[in-house]
């Protein structure tokens, strides 16, 4: 739910990074020892088994039945490495992988995303190299027929006599094992190509921008329409703006409800691409830049509608999916949608300062008004917690204590300062809804998830007919 926080992708990249790197190291080290032994065997002059096997024919008219890829005693392992397909592709692949790994550390990804994004396209070299790595057939095995003429169990001891006419054992013949890596990568590569084509096709569908709103604190809201686009609450889309950057696609949580006519995102200035995008839309004179959209992605947070009582906690930028959820709940409630089981919502909004989220503030104000009109003020109970308060703000608030609306947000419910005391909140809710099942949904930091989960356990009654709190692990 923050800019790159797609948990599954992060888990996978962690796995994909460390696992192959470790095995790559083992693979390379094994080849180093192997080549070292080949080199020594090639240079051995003592008529040992190793030296005889090494001198087996290279390109003779019987075909190349050689075993030792190092063809002459002068040839160095470095030469063979860089002149064989396996060696060259191996070096290229390894360097590509290392560059991809060093540019993909969390630090670099978070702060210099373009370095990660563009370098990661080296994967093409990696995959192609992987496919052709084994073509040279350097790893050799004895041929079937040769096994009949020269069984290693019988003939290994008598290797000095292989040349003799009357010996049972002929010179062994070796052939290269066919490359096998393509069998592993074929299916994933095909799936990947198919997915890229599908995403390209989807992104080519025309996106019509129906409304552009510039909110305070440099937040840009874009309302759009696209043929065949259908979304669920809590999902996100990837957005590309060719006039800013051809290759970059950035994820944004959808802030509109599925029931609305168009879908929307709110973009905050948080880096090169977003700042350029906001600047491009700010210019009134030139035409609106073209936008491409891919998605929606992400698991839908449908579970929210299944609980009688819902506790929604949005911390910082994690409040964004709740825009979609709150709007959708409100639509369903107004239209008495049977899918909606929710009777009461407790919404906790925790942030340092509301500046960048004043648009969400406005959403709450309008929801508040609509609920008043319908006479359903109790439906949504929300609390805002400002964690970045100072004595000035508090003084100001104390001064305006008896005003009807909150001085910070303009909402009817007053702003609290500091972090919520979850024990109080949970016990209050448990007392007010002694027989309900309460769903707790969080979009925020892991530490908060831990505290909430603990509270869920603590305040769920042992009696299954009484109040139960379920913490939903979805980190939107």
């Amino acid at each position, binding site marked *: 739910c923050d800019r790159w926080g797609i948990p599954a992708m992060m888990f996978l990249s962690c796995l994909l990074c460390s696992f192959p790197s470790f095995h790559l190291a083992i693979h390379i080290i094994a080849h180093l020892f192997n080549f070292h032994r080949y080199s020594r065997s090639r240079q051995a002059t003592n008529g040992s088994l190793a030296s005889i096997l090494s001198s087996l024919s290279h390109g003779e008219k019987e075909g190349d039945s050689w075993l030792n890829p190092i063809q002459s005693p002068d040839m160095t392992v470095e030469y063979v490495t860089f002149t064989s397909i396996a060696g060259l592709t191996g070096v290229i692949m390894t360097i590509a992988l290392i560059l991809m790994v*060093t540019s993909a550390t969390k630090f*670099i990804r978070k702060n210099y995303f373009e370095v990660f994004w563009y370098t990661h396209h080296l994967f093409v070299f990696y995959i192609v190299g992987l496919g052709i790595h084994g073509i040279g057939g350097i790893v050799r095995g004895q041929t079937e027929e040769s096994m009949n003429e020269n069984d290693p169990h019988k003939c290994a001891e008598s290797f000095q006599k292989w040349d003799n006419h009357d010996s049972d054992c002929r010179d062994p013949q070796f052939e290269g094992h066919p490359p096998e890596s393509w069998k592993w990568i074929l299916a994933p590569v095909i799936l990947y190509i198919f997915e890229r084509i599908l995403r390209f096709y989807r992104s080519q569908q025309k996106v019509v921008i129906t409304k552009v709103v510039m909110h305070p604190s440099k937040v840009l809201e874009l309302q759009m329409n696209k043929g065949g686009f259908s979304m669920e609450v809590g999902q996100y889309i990837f957005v590309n703006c060719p006039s800013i950057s051809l290759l970059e696609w950035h994820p944004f949580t959808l802030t509109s409800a599925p029931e609305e006519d168009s879908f929307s995102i709110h973009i905050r200035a948080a880096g090169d691409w977003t700042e350029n995008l906001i600047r491009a839309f700010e210019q009134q004179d030139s035409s609106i830049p073209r936008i491409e959209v891919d998605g929606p992605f992400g698991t839908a947070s449908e579970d929210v509608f299944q609980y009688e009582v819902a506790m929604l906690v949005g911390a910082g930028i994690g409040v964004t999916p709740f825009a979609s959820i709150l709007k959708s709940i409100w639509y369903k409630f107004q239209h008495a949608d049977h899918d909606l089981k929710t009777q009461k919502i407790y919404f906790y909004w925790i942030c340092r300062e509301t500046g960048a989220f004043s648009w969400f503030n406005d959403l709450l104000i309008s929801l508040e008004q609509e609920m008043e009109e319908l006479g359903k003020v109790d439906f949504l109970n929300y609390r805002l917690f400002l964690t970045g308060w100072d004595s000035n703000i508090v*003084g100001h608030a104390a*001064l305006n204590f008896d005003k009807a609306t909150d001085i910070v947000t303009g909402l009817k419910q007053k702003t609290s300062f500091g972090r919520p005391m979850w024990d109080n909140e949970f016990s209050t809710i448990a007392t007010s809804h002694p027989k309900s099942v309460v769903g707790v949904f969080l979009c925020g930091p892991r530490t908060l998830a831990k505290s909430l989960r603990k509270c869920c356990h603590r305040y769920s009654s042992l009696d299954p007919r009484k109040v139960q709190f379920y913490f939903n692990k979805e980190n939107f």
Partner: protein
Amino acid sequence: MGQIEWAMWANEQALASGLILITGGIVATAGRFTQWYFGAYSIAAGVFVCLLEYPRGKRAKGTTMERCGQKYMTTVLKLFGPLTRNYYIRAVLHLMLSVPAGFLLATILGTACLAIASGIYLLAAVRGEQWMPIEPKPRQRPQVGATIKQPPSNPPPRPPAEARKKPSEGEEAAAGVSAGGPQANPIPVTDEVV
């Protein structure tokens, strides 16, 4: 792309290269490959590079995540002043360090990676980047005196016009309604019990 600090990536790449040099060096030395003494060199060079690159430099903008326990090496690096600050020197140093390891297959990967890191450092140097140490910020103890707000120095808005001083700053916080200059209140001011 204007905000990319190439030195940060060069640092990650160089650190990885150091580890690769050490690994390749250990393999070559343990296996007693031909010319294995290059492997021994590679271990030493790798350790040196790792120590040099372990402390992350400070980002130009924003906060920088330190590596665990890097403050010890940071103090050492600070002692060398411009030698460690300047990225041209680092680029040349890494390039020179990588050359001897290139003679051995086991360590040639380390050479390639360190040479690439050297190239990225060169790019960083050309763009004027520098290594700045991450210093721990001194913790600000809250001054007890500063949190006490002064009581209003002027009486409530009744203008004794003659002895008017400039109104004091910061009244909005605790003092309540500002005691302005000589003024005629447009609406009558009543005392509200809060």
